[in-house]
């Protein structure tokens, strides 16, 4: 199949169209606006709908409406815009409406800046809005993986009747890489049983996002919890890379994940054996592989483009078995291979004496 050099943002948009996305609602914000621009050109040709909303809030509720109608629907944003969508994401989870959300994240807090960042990890994986809910979170590390995970996102959203978030960053959105579009043809999930169409000849249906009776609301929460448990059993994705007998385990996702591959190779040249676990699903989190790999290595170093978010989940996963070190950059700074190598050497040389983090 033909390789095309494509920008991450354009590639997500094209993959969404190929995955059968019927409607897209969005609001311009750097560094993801190309997604809107691309779909404004492309979707009408496929019989789909592109609509630029008056706000991020407007956009997420347009998604809510279109998802209730059973269509494949997507929105995308970044940092501040994604914060505005959080109310709607909570409602989507409550109403069990499938959709795909793309966060090409940027530096924060506040207006922050437009450079790549992973500071939205907590917001993405812990439920950024109110209430007891989870969003399935996929974290690609290349333009190709952005495409492949976009196909997967639409399928998982329908499978679980739950929003799926693709968490990228400005680097993935803005960079170009060769990409091949291979739509894996995931099975179609029927929505016949719940979709809102007007009642036609059937009994009427209602999409609800509340239950004023506490017994009923607890029942809804337990039902959602069962879905999340099923995701944890069935949907965990990760990549393991590097040495079979590592002296240190590296952990990083997305953009950092690919930088850590360079670190593994650089270390190999210097005779240092490193392994990498790159979580691809951030929720559900690949706890078991991490625990196993961390035990094997005896210590772990988590690298993130924030000041320490996923590291908490890594610590929970290894259950105190091994020391977990942290190296973080923030504000749009991208950790370099050089600086990570320094941390690796420091940890391997000083062992227990090494600083827990670089802050």
């Amino acid at each position, binding site marked *: 199949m033909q390789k095309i050099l494509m920008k991450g943002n354009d590639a997500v948009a094209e993959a969404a169209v190929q995955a059968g996305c*019927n*409607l897209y*609602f969005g609001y311009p914000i750097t560094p993801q606006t190309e997604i809107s621009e691309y779909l404004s050109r492309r979707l009408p040709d496929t019989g789909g*709908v592109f*609509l630029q*909303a*008056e*706000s991020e*809030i*407007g*956009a*997420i*509720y*347009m*998604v*809510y*409406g*279109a*998802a*209730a*109608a*059973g*269509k494949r*629907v997507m929105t995308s944003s970044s940092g501040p815009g994604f914060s505005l969508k959080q*109310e*709607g994401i909570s*409602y989507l989870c409550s*109403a069990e409406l499938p959709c795909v959300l793309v966060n090409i994240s940027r530096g924060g807090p506040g207006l922050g800046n437009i450079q790549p960042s992973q500071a939205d990890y907590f917001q993405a994986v812990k439920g950024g809005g109110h209430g007891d809910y989870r969003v399935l979170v996929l974290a690609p590390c290349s333009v190709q993986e952005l495409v492949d995970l976009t196909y997967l996102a639409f399928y998982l959203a329908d499978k679980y009747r739950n929003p799926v978030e693709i968490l990228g960053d400005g680097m993935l959105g803005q960079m170009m890489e060769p990409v091949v579009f291979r739509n894996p043809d995931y099975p179609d999930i029927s929505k016949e049983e719940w979709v*809102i*169409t*007007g*009642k*036609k*000849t059937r009994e*009427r*249906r*209602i*999409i*609800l*996002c*509340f239950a004023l009776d506490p017994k009923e609301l607890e029942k809804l929460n337990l039902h959602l919890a069962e879905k999340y448990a099923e995701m944890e059993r069935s949907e965990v994705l990760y990549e393991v890379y590097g040495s079979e007998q590592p002296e240190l385990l590296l952990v990083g996702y997305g953009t950092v994940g690919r930088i850590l591959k360079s670190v593994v190779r650089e270390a190999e040249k210097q005779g240092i054996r490193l392994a990498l676990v790159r979580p691809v699903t951030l929720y559900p989190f690949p706890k078991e592989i991490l625990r196993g790999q961390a035990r094997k290595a005896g210590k772990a170093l988590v690298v993130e483009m924030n000041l320490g978010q996923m590291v908490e989940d890594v610590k929970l996963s290894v259950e105190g078995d091994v020391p977990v070190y942290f190296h973080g950059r923030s504000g749009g700074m991208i950790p370099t291979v050089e600086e990570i190598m320094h941390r690796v050497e420091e940890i391997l040389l000083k062992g227990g004496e090494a600083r827990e983090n670089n802050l």
Partner: protein
Amino acid sequence: MKTIFERPKTLLEKPFTYCPGCHHGLAHRLLAEVIDELGIADHTIGVGPVGCSVYIYVFLDIDFVMGAHGRAPATATGLKRALPEQVVFSYQGDGDIAAIGTSEIIHSAARGELISAFFINNAIFGMTGGQMAPTTISGQVTTTSPRGRSTVDQGYPLKLCELLRGLEGSAYLARVLLTRPKYIREAKEVFRKAFLTQIEKKGFSLVEVLSPCPTNWKMTPAEAVAWVENTLAHSFPPGEIKGWEETGHAG
């Protein structure tokens, strides 16, 4: 024997749970009658509000999507864009549509979104217990304007129909009362026209219903009806605010 009066089919046989003297029940019934008469119950979708009428879906026998406070016009937009042949309407109170949801309603109207909004204006936040709304009139006492709404401190009531009138996308805007049989008959025609504005793809339509809230106004139902007619209707003059003639859709 000839039946001269019966429950509209679209109105389910469930007693209304609204307070005595509230006009939500009347508005629901009018909706049901018009939906029946237009024969659209099988392809009409309601989008509910957050407020007293959050239970509207209990009473009308059509598909419903319940969503967030103020966002019904955006949700309705998503539904309508996904299902352009269905009839989609929102039903919202004044806190919902004129406070937190102002942005969504203005932009839906500006886009000429082919949806109809039914807006129940009782000049107060009802469900939360009678707080000041953007529609609270000057001098009106509420639990958050205990000395009466001061236009100096709290500004002026928001007149949504008049605000939307200037937008090219709005095709039909009207304000009605349900306080007398004659008004109810007139209102029904307005409800019908709002749906027709959508069905005939003329543009966005909105009907504002001035409605009493005896409970939070601390009045008897009769006093509340009188207050709607004599006071509230003075601030919010009833009538067609923007008709098909003005938007070039007549005939």
